[in-house]
């Protein structure tokens, strides 16, 4: 049966092509496939018949309408990604099909626009994180962290230990473990201070030795706590000859000193707050950057765009560079297997940063800081709710709340019935047993005062 997405499926075209091949049926093209392997019946996919565009729209509507999108108020869920507003101009750029239907720019001369845009992404991101080079993207924050760790292990060839703080996102730590067991790397976790919610610097120092290739810390950590010993821990890492990787959220780096300036050797993060959807967790874009250091650059994973000149040296142009690190050239000696990355999401982040500019990125950080502080005060006065959970710490964008006298799951269910979503509940993660009655709450530039007030009054009623 002919189909509009398969233009040569109409009989007259198909027959003309078959004639050119001197055959009468397409099945002859599969004569080299063992007969017993060819399916007798077409597979049972879809609804058993092709659908018209209108039918597929109705079919999809019937399913997707079971999802609930919360707008009033927006979600207060944190834990790696939070709800942020996406400017219309970002969507306008990334829905241009010259961009989104393109392949990886292997043919540079016909892909200059795409290459320049990604060069700009790399450059803007390098500025934001205070490093020299950022690659053209990883899949997301978790795989960026896992790739950074592997990159560091390659630089420190004879060291097999990875030191990771327990204040790093638990799913990032799980990913690193999965990525490590095959090659026999050992992941050692550092305790956090139960009182402050920060990495326990004493435990960090105690576990550092000359076997440690790399340390991984999260700047504003999983609990939303600013790691105010970060600088010291980076210095300690260096003292023991380890590479310091720091994970940070780009949206607050207009306010906070960038990790590159704090001495991090490799920076990682996730670009979701910069104009990307929540997308039920993916796709996003992973940020990975480093200093302009020969040894580090040689081990950098993934694609990198650079500026060059035309062969006649008269014009500036852009092309993929240092490709001898990559799998399509280097095969088993490549720095990573990554091929497809998150190019379009990186482009969205570049547009977002361009729209905000230096002033805007600073102001948006302040707007988030202001909301966090307001929410801390507002939620801090609620009976049977413990806020803050950790003493004397600085919270940015997120913080845990602890319910007393009632189970957090009950409280959460009641909030949901009032169309209010908080999370993740920390009991979701195996290694925070002591925080089993806690949930994170997240506040971004997308939350208004009345949104936060609504959350506070709902919590007040539920916990009364």
């Amino acid at each position, binding site marked *: 049966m002919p189909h509009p*997405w398969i233009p040569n499926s109409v009989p007259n075209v198909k027959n003309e092509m078959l004639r050119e091949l001197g055959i009468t049926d*397409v099945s002859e*093209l599969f*004569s080299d496939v063992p007969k017993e392997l060819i*399916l007798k019946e077409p*597979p049972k*996919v*879809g609804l*058993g018949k092709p*659908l018209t565009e209108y039918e597929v729209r109705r079919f999809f509507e019937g399913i*997707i*309408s*079971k*999802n609930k999108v919360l707008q009033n108020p927006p979600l207060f869920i944190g*834990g*790696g990604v939070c709800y942020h507003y996406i400017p219309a101009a970002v969507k306008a*750029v990334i829905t*241009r*099909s010259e961009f989104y239907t393109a*392949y990886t720019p292997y043919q540079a*001369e*016909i*892909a*200059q*626009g*795409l290459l320049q845009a990604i060069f700009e992404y790399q*450059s803007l991101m390098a500025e*934001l994180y205070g490093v020299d080079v*950022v690659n053209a993207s990883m*899949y997301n924050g978790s795989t960026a962290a896992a790739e950074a760790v592997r990159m560091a292990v390659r630089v420190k060839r004879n060291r097999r230990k990875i030191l990771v703080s327990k204040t790093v996102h638990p799913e990032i730590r799980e990913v690193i473990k*999965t990525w490590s067991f095959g090659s026999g790397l050992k992941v050692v976790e550092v305790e956090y201070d139960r009182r402050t919610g920060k990495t326990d610097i004493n435990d960090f120092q105690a576990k550092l030795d000359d076997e440690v290739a790399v340390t991984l810390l999260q700047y504003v950590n999983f609990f939303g706590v600013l790691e105010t010993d970060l600088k010291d821990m980076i210095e300690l890492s260096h003292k023991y000859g380890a590479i310091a990787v720091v994970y940070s959220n780009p949206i607050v780096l207009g*306010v906070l*000193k960038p990790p590159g300036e704090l001495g991090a050797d490799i920076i990682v993060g996730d670009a979701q707050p910069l104009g990307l959807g929540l*997308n*039920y967790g*993916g*796709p996003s874009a992973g940020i990975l950057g480093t200093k302009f250091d*020969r040894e580090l650059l040689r081990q950098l994973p993934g694609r990198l765009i*650079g500026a*060059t000149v035309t062969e006649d*040296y008269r*014009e500036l142009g852009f092309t993929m560079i240092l490709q001898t690190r990559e799998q*399509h050239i280097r*095969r088993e000696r*490549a720095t990573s*297997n*990554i091929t*497809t*990355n998150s190019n*379009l999401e990186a482009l969205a982040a570049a547009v977002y940063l*361009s*729209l905000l*500019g*230096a002033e805007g990125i600073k*102001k948006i950080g*302040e707007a988030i800081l*202001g909301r966090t*502080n307001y929410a801390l005060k507002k939620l801090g006065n609620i009976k049977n709710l413990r806020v803050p959970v950790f003493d004397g710490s600085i919270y940015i964008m997120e913080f845990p709340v602890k319910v007393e006298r009632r189970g957090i799951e009950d409280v959460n269910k009641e909030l*949901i019935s009032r169309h209010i979503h908080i*999370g993740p509940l920390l009991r979701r993660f195996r290694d925070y047993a002591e925080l089993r009655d806690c949930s994170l709450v997240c506040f971004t530039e997308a939350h208004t005062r009345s949104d936060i007030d609504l959350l506070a009054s709902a919590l007040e009623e539920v916990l009364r």
Partner: protein
Amino acid sequence: MAFRQAKWDEPIIFELSKYRKQGLIVDDEFKKYSEDALKEIPNDYLRARDDLNMPSLSEVEVIRHFTRLSQMAYGIDVGPVPLGSCTMKYNPKICEELASDRRVTDIHPYQDEETVQGILEVVYLLQKWLAELTGADVCTIQPPAGASGEFVGALMIKKYHMDRGEEQRTEMIIPDSAHGSNPASAVMAGFKVVRVPATPKGDTDINAIKAVVSDKTAGIMLTNPSTLGLFESKILEIADIIHNAGGLLYYDGANLNAILGLVRPCDMGFDVVHLNLHKTFAAPHGGGGPGAGAICAKGELKNYIPVPLVDYDGRKYYLKYDIPKSIGRITWFYGNIVPAVKSFIYLASLGPLVREVAEISVLNTNYFMKKVTKLPGIDLIYGRDRWRKHEVVLSFEKLHKETGVTAEDVAKALLDRGFHAPTIYFPLIVPEAHMVELTESETKENIDSLVNAYAEIIQLAYKDPEKLKASPRNTSISRLNNIVANALKTVTPSFKFISRVRSVIKTDKT
């Protein structure tokens, strides 16, 4: 095809404007609260004023800049992109529109399961359909891309052997013609790569496989059809050899388009299969990503898939974490959901017509091969008398010897004629290679034009090779200097080093 790509002398965004304009407005509703909060942050952790070198632009400047850049990009919606092993098929607009629904893009991965039943149902059905297409027991869409799927497959094989106390199985067999990401993924999973060659007919050399299997063999990574576009007709025999040696078979799904709905990888004996949703199932490539992968497994390996899996308990859909032998998490959250939604719409639309996808893509490729091989200077090297599947690899070795024109020159000349070039210099076993994949969405008219373009280029190569080497001329820019791009002194990976490359630009004065 007459073709002139747009050429804007578009400045780098940092140099777009000499004035500081007003960018997006951010409210200062909470100014008092943010000022208080800032006082709490130790000075060591505060960004210095004016430390951030970023452009300050108005919205119209940003939009014009990126719109102009888009006009200097080339995707499927502009014209044919016959990149081999990339399956650059048309990305249907209905898939784009439905997947951009707020009920897809605005839901949080930690949202309560009761409120995301719609998306979980989509993923569940997609998992089921992919299992049907591969013959697997179970599929998950956890891997964010194809290479990630390969890594997952290799890790599953690794853990399977470890659990059986066979840690000595450290060798992964990979044909010379495999995609580069296969050996790279195998090494990431801790394997040593053992290479096997192809026979002159283009099959994987069975005797070579027999010679290398041992109790060290963990498995084999194969794509079928191969990167030569040939169906591995002895696949069942290969599967027996590997299985009898205690190894497992991994299927690289990059080339599945050719047999979609006709032959199922698990029926061929594969234990674990990866798929690229952005190739075979029509999600767009996004200029390099994001894509989405799937991993499917049969038999014992189904217990090793990464967590979580979307399952159904008869009442509701949920994320299943209770998979005791699982390799663990390969990424945070649940994979690349938006491209998966696009593939779901694609499969729902086509239903049993997926078979037409395979048949027409194979018809297109063979029709192209038949016509193009009549031209001088082209050879197929492997399996000259065999039908191709989804792709064909042309060798310009003869043309190169006779005229000095390389596969790259031919590729650049194709750009001038309005076609994206095929994959070049791959697979490595074919000298001066063009790997051409014409998916089911290419028209006969365009295939004929592509053959004509090759004819014109070859004719020019014999007549005036120097003229050909001056290609491309009709693209935004002429050929780029790869030495300057990569040399230690001039390499320029971000804007802050732009003076390095600018210093070598020649002006009329120099």
